[in-house]
């Protein structure tokens, strides 16, 4: 499904969101994140462990607990009925009725999320009892059975327990539970990471089919960019707490702009494409307890220029493609090097000798 982002009001808009973990050393887990989700759209959020993607998801669904602390920003939910909700301002009863009925979540580990001593039926009923107290027992039963069938599980499983279900079926039950109150937004946090590929493929198809049928928007969080490229409409790439690039999935795949995105795309071999030498990214993500002066990726970036090390990059928007990188900022650069334009992560021999020269001189300038 293709949603034109300029014609619909976003169902979820995150503006300038920052989250800290107030430990002995304050961890700046999410910094100044802007993200919108349009109705019916699947937005992929990709990044490595520790990049803040799950913290962001928890902040949006108000599941953060101390020491996590939202230090800045807004999350605005706009329902199909036109009502707007200031998500971060919700309290107690309002929050309880908002969560699950408007935004629901599916977590990675369905075994730990499902209650092992309650049947699937009881767990589905619990949702209705809490949120739809007017429903009769028969209605709850009927709706629960319908939900299971919706995710491809026979109603005979209603009386089953988590341990009797395979990993894929548990995850389907989790999706059924998330869909129970027909929310407008579903946040999926690594929903298929623990599953085998064939089961993963089934679940992905199920999510896509349900999205088309029910029209919810989904924020799909994973470290697996190759998977997102197949199922997401738009993709946001997170690094060290910030979104460093955001664009339609097809553009991320064919024309990535941020060096980190290019690096991620080069970090997994192609299943069927040409065999070629690939390189991982050197180094590791930065320590988020230490304030970062410039671009957080600069120490690992083969294309870093002088300002990368001391000036934070701003998110530059062109059309529906946004990137936070000095190479695209006319104030600092006349444009990205050819190698990066071609989606390569490493600087290779011939065509980049000039660039290498520039970079080394800049580096020396900073050290001096």
């Amino acid at each position, binding site marked *: 499904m293709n949603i034109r982002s300029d014609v619909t009001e976003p169902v979820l808009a995150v503006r300038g969101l920052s989250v800290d973990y107030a430990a002995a050393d304050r961890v700046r887990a999410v910094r100044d994140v802007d993200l919108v989700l349009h109705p019916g759209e699947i937005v992929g959020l990709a990044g*490595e462990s520790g990049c803040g993607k799950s913290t962001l998801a928890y902040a949006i669904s108000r599941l953060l607990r101390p020491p996590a602390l939202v230090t800045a920003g807004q999350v605005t939910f706009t329902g199909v009925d036109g009502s707007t909700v200031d998500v971060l301002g919700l309290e107690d009863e309002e929050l309880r009725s908002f969560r699950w009925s408007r935004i629901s979540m599916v977590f990675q580990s369905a075994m730990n999320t499902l209650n092992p001593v309650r049947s699937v039926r009881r767990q589905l009923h619990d949702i209705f009892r809490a949120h739809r107290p007017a429903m009769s027992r028969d209605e709850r039963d009927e709706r629960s059975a319908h939900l299971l069938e919706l995710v491809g599980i026979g109603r005979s499983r209603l009386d089953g327990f988590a341990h009797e279900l395979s990993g894929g079926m548990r995850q389907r039950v989790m999706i059924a539970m998330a869909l129970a109150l027909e929310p407008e937004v579903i946040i999926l946090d690594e929903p298929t990471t623990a599953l085998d590929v*064939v089961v993963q493929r089934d679940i992905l198809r199920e999510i896509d089919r349900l999205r088309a049928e029910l029209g919810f928007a989904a924020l799909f969080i994973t470290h697996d960019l*190759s998977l997102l490229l197949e199922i997401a409409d738009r993709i946001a790439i997170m690094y060290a707490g910030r979104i460093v690039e955001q664009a339609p999935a097809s553009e991320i795949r064919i024309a990535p702009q941020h060096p980190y995105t290019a690096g991620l795309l080069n970090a997994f071999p192609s*299943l069927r494409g040409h065999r070629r030498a690939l390189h991982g990214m050197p180094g590791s993500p930065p320590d988020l307890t230490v304030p970062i002066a410039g671009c957080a990726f600069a120490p690992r970036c083969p294309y870093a220029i002088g300002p990368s090390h001391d000036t934070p990059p701003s998110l530059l928007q062109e059309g529906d493609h946004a990137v936070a990188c000095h190479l695209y900022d006319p104030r600092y650069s006349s444009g990205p090097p050819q190698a990066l334009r071609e989606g390569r992560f490493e600087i290779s021999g011939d065509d980049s000798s000039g660039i290498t020269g520039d970079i080394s001189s800049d580096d020396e300038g900073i050290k001096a």
Partner: protein
Amino acid sequence: MTTLEVRDLVKTFGARRGAGAVRAVDGVSFALARGGTTALVGESGSGKTTVARILARIERETSGDIVVDGVAAPRLGRRLRRYHADVQMVFQDPFASLNPAHTVAYHLARPLTIHRGLHGAERHSALVELLERVRLTPAEQIAAKHPHELSGGQRQRVALARALAPGPKLLLADEPVSMLDVSIRLELLNLIASIQRERDLAVLYITHDLATARYFSDTVLVMYRGWIVESGPSDEVILDPKHPYTQLLAEAAPDPGRTAPPKLEGRSVVEAVPRTGCRFAPRCPHAMDRCRVQDPPVIPLGDARATRCWLYEDSAPGTAASPDSGVT
């Protein structure tokens, strides 16, 4: 030259016979040669890790032969120690495979002493050399650290250095990168590949990921529920899979470059392993009556390929194969 040969390996868990017994590995045969990487590909429950653990002598096989350079693999004692000088393993979880109470130096010093008889300054320089080889520098500083001071990728390099310490001929790598972040996986795989070439190792790369199996190995063995169902050169097996299960795996794997939506033939629902016939039959879109009653033989397809599927019976007339023919 063959480094390691596995013949008709069987591992049964649970009851010794009857309904309770699970044949996790059921008649697996293959050979690994020095200087080559073979990927053992399969989903959870395929038996791939059990094969590796048997080869590492952590698990005891129910039956079958394991022969290293002409000598049967021992189970106990001094000969087992010699075996371990030749066959080493890197485990999946770098957080569980190193002892949190000991330094990196301790982890590497032990195999250097036990297997190579090194002590003192000699041992220390071998240790530094190992750390530098796995690109953990400055080696002196890394050597003094405890596992908790290292990242997942660094720990996995320590585990690799430890496995290399005895100077093995065969390296068993059980999902060595699946718990690492995407950006550092290839670096570790590339490192293993360069060490493999340099030391002329035989590597058995155990993985669920077809894409890295293709990238990283010369030969692929596809396992399903204890059977090797397909084998051959990695490009051929992955680009042109023959067994319906391999076809299903290749279709389901993420492939951003794919031009058409995946055609998923075959059921993903996990069924109990059938008592008779092909183990994949309950999920197979091409299953015939015969598949449900009669075990398919290993059918050679050309020189280096083989599959265990009745569909290919006619492609190799007159070769009602024995279980280990072709699967080498």
